[in-house]
């Protein structure tokens, strides 16, 4: 097996292979231009300067024309990866794309690993780790908020913040060591309470940043709302009503499994996936083992659970079972929906429901009555549950979150030391850890396994 080399020239399609009238293929590395030149008839690429585009035919090694293409040329270091890059815009035909890529592979290129373009961009100093991760986020962003967040992060906003934080900590650490080194020189360097103040300031910034993770993570992956209820209460109609209220950006993928149908919708700039649990039944006497497992998994995974009840029929035993189940385990993230309000004149007066403390909404999927309130309630519940603060920057990434938490821990150790009147040499220990951790976030010293870990979570073509 050929060992993969950092110096290989790599290639991948950077647009989705199916769909779209145009496909874009990127080649990066030392031989990107020379190999392309072999197959491009438009001009002698080796004599061209980067930053220009060219039009011509792409041929195979028999001289047969594969496609009529537009070619974008980038000379190192002015490219995404920092190496020589060629991007070929061809017709969005999978056979064309395949044959085009084949020419490169036979000329010695290899397929790019997931995230490899971004990894090279990072290694060539075109961006730091935070920016690289933001690129991945940007591509998969499921909400406008995340999109804006990712754009800011790609632009280096988070990196700036982290850098500033690190500089603050380095300043504090320097004063500590200055005091330690020159304690004999009779120069007042710094007092313990001043140090505590500075550390607290940094700590507060850090804590606010960490606090955005719950919400950021949720926004990033998209909110999952589970619609459950016994048959014929109108689950599908509610689903449709929720969707039809807003323009769907993502066209519904035929995600029909045996048990669920899901639809993706954007509400208030947030991507929400509604999952209709058509096939899940729960009765008191007979529960399919497999069905229970599936239903448990779906309930646990959901961010919000909507339990639909047909008001016009009142509350049956099956309804009650579901209410009990939800009350027992999912109380904080559930809403009870009384559907078919148009049919019933009476209000849902069964006291038991209200006693659970779970919010109850009455709607009519048919008339649309109450649907907008329902949407708002869903969003609000998410915000409350994730402690949403109106912060500037959101952390959406688990790796970053974990490191920031450890950094906070270190600062807390340092504050403890000050409280207990330990000497500066002890405070320094935790300051060093905190500073090292912040360097880790932006990827200052990364081992290959760390980087592989990060970039392998990207998709191919990034």
């Amino acid at each position, binding site marked *: 097996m050929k060992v993969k080399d950092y110096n290989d020239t790599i290639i991948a399609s950077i647009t989705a292979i199916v769909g779209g009238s145009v496909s874009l293929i990127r080649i990066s590395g030392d031989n990107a231009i020379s190999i392309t030149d072999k197959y491009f008839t438009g001009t002698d690429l080796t004599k061209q300067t980067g930053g220009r585009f060219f039009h011509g035919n792409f041929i195979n090694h028999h001289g047969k024309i594969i496609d009529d293409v537009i070619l974008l040329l980038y000379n190192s270091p002015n490219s995404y990866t920092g190496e020589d890059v060629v991007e070929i815009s061809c017709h969005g035909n999978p056979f064309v794309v395949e044959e085009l890529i084949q020419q490169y592979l036979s000329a010695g290129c290899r397929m790019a690993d997931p995230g490899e373009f971004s990894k090279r961009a990072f*290694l060539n100093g075109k961006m730091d780790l935070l920016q690289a991760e933001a690129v991945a986020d940007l591509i998969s962003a499921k909400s406008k908020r995340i999109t804006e967040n990712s754009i800011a992060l790609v632009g280096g906003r988070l990196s700036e913040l982290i850098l500033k934080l690190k500089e603050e900590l380095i300043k504090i650490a320097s004063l500590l060591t200055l005091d330690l080194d020159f304690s004999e020189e009779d120069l007042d360097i710094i007092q313990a309470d001043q140090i505590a103040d500075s550390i607290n300031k940094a700590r507060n910034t850090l804590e606010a940043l960490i606090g955005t993770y719950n919400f950021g993570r949720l926004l990033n992956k998209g909110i999952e709302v589970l619609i459950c209820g016994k048959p014929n209460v109108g689950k599908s109609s509610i689903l449709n009503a929720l969707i039809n209220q807003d323009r769907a950006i993502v066209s519904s993928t035929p995600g029909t499994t045996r048990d669920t149908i899901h639809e993706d919708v954007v509400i208030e700039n947030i991507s929400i996936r509604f999952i209709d649990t058509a096939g899940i039944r729960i009765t008191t006497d007979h529960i399919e083992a497999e069905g229970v497992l599936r239903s448990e998994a779906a309930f646990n995974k959901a961010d919000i659970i909507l339990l639909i009840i047909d008001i016009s029929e009142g509350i049956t035993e099956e309804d009650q079972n579901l209410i009990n189940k939800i009350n027992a385990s999912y109380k904080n993230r559930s809403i009870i929906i009384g559907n078919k309000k148009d049919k019933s004149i009476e209000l849902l007066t069964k006291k038991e429901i209200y006693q659970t403390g779970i919010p109850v909404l009455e709607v009519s999927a048919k008339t649309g009555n109450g649907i907008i309130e329902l949407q708002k309630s869903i969003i609000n519940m998410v915000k409350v549950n994730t402690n949403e603060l109106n912060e500037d920057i959101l952390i959406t990434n688990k790796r970053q979150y974990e490191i920031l938490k450890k950094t906070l821990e270190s600062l807390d150790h340092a504050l403890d030391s000050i409280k207990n009147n330990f000497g500066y040499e002890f405070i320094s220990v935790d300051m060093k850890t905190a500073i090292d951790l912040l360097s880790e976030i932006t990827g200052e010293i990364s081992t290959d396994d760390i980087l592989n870990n990060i970039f392998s979570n990207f998709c191919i073509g990034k």
Partner: protein
Amino acid sequence: MKQTNKNKFDIVVVGGGHAGIEAAIVAANMGMDTALVTMEINKIGLMSCNPAIGGLAKGQLVREIDALGGIMGKISDAAGIHFKMLNTSKGPAVQSPRAQADRAYYSKVAKNFTLNTRNLTVIEDAAIGVKTGKNKIIGVILKDGSLISTRAAILTNGTFLNGLIHVGDKKISAGRAGEMPATGITESLQALGFTAGRLKTGTPPRIHRDSIDYTKVEVQAPDKIPVPFSFSTDKINRQQINCYITYTNTKTHDILRTGFDRSPMFTGTIKGVGPRYCPSIEDKINRFSDKNRHQLFLENGTSGYEEAAAQGFMAGLNAALKLKGQEPFMLGRSEAYIGVLIDDLINKTHDEPYRMFTSRAEFRLLLRHDNADLRLMEYGRNFGLVDDQTYGKYLARRKEIDTIQKNEMSKKIGPKIFNSHFKNKSSNLTQAVKVKDLIKRPEISLRQLLELVTDKEYSNSSIGEVEFNIKYSGYIERQSAQIEKFRNIESKLIPADIDYTSMQAMSVEAREKLTRIKPVNIGQASRISGVSPADLSVLVIYLEKHKHGNVPRETGYIPA
């Protein structure tokens, strides 16, 4: 005065200062036929600057040299007249021993050590160059042109190399006041391709003790029980004297300011860059102009003897090891201040004389002056540099520490005894608690607790070691985790045949530095000034990708 007709040796050391005597003595003690060439035998080990040994971070160096088998600690204990442990109000990790010495007597003791070492010949003469052939040393050339053949040469001329002395606006060519500089050596090295530069340091004025009005100064008494530098010294016997502190005032500052135009530093006459950390009084007045008084110590300050001695010792030891065909002895940054010193000297750029600080040691909690023996004496013993008596003391201490940990730490102290003993000083107990848990209370010392549970007498140093490790165990754990991470990166070896010039993704400066310094591992590479974190990442990835092609270095040694 020893003179000799012998002109062939295993190792020749040039220069009889603090580095030279360590190098020569350890080389001789390792069994090498050694010569020390010095311009004046009576000036061996003479302190050019402050007559003091030790101080912050430097005291640690002295004790480490001693643990390994060097002599600076022993000489200091014999000649010290004012011992003071610094930073006693702070934690043990930043405490350092220091002593003012009788300058003349120090030199006498040093000379005695040197002249009475077996395998060591002292040659009173001036060396003016080195002779080499086929990339090997052939010998050291003396003033009269004659050659002393040698298999290894150690140059410890130090501040004497083409020395230049400025007194006010006068310039004199000298190594020390009244002594000739060492000439010819620098040019000899330059001919071999070395580049030369110049650094500057200042020295305090000397005043006669009878010219001081002792009624107007504050007394600084020495420590009642002086802690010796050397692990082989039981007690300091020499009589101790007081030192004194006084202050400048605004009148002094005014007077000093009138002389700025004749100060060679201010007028730019001095072309070397002085130590930032050793500000002269002009510096202090200038930079801290809002202070209306500055401390003046009679007499206090630091020099560079300890750094010199450490380098001399390591050079002598390693020259001997090399000639014996053995592995070199290297200390890592996490093992000793000596390791920090040498690593920094190799990897950093030096615009000013290097001075050791505790802040240079990332792992200062573990590198304390009082555990130098636990860290290093085994090495010294293995090289045959530590005598039976000293080693015996060390083993006894190890045993004592073990005993305290095994026998005493798990003993419980009942509420009655504890509460009556510690009355207001520590919160009451409601049930019996183990010693090892009680010791975590910052207000309680281990000695106090041991008094309650045993009649056995334990030494302060052993109690101190156990106490520190428990009281600060959290910090030690976290520092040890840092060391783990550090060693991981240090263990990523860089093959000897690596070609940095081909790494386009790395900055030009980094490629140059790496090619020049040839670091043995990633950790060392990261400490080279001019190598940025981004450059480092490129190197790390390159090494991972080319793992199959790694050519391990000759020694395969991984610094701890």
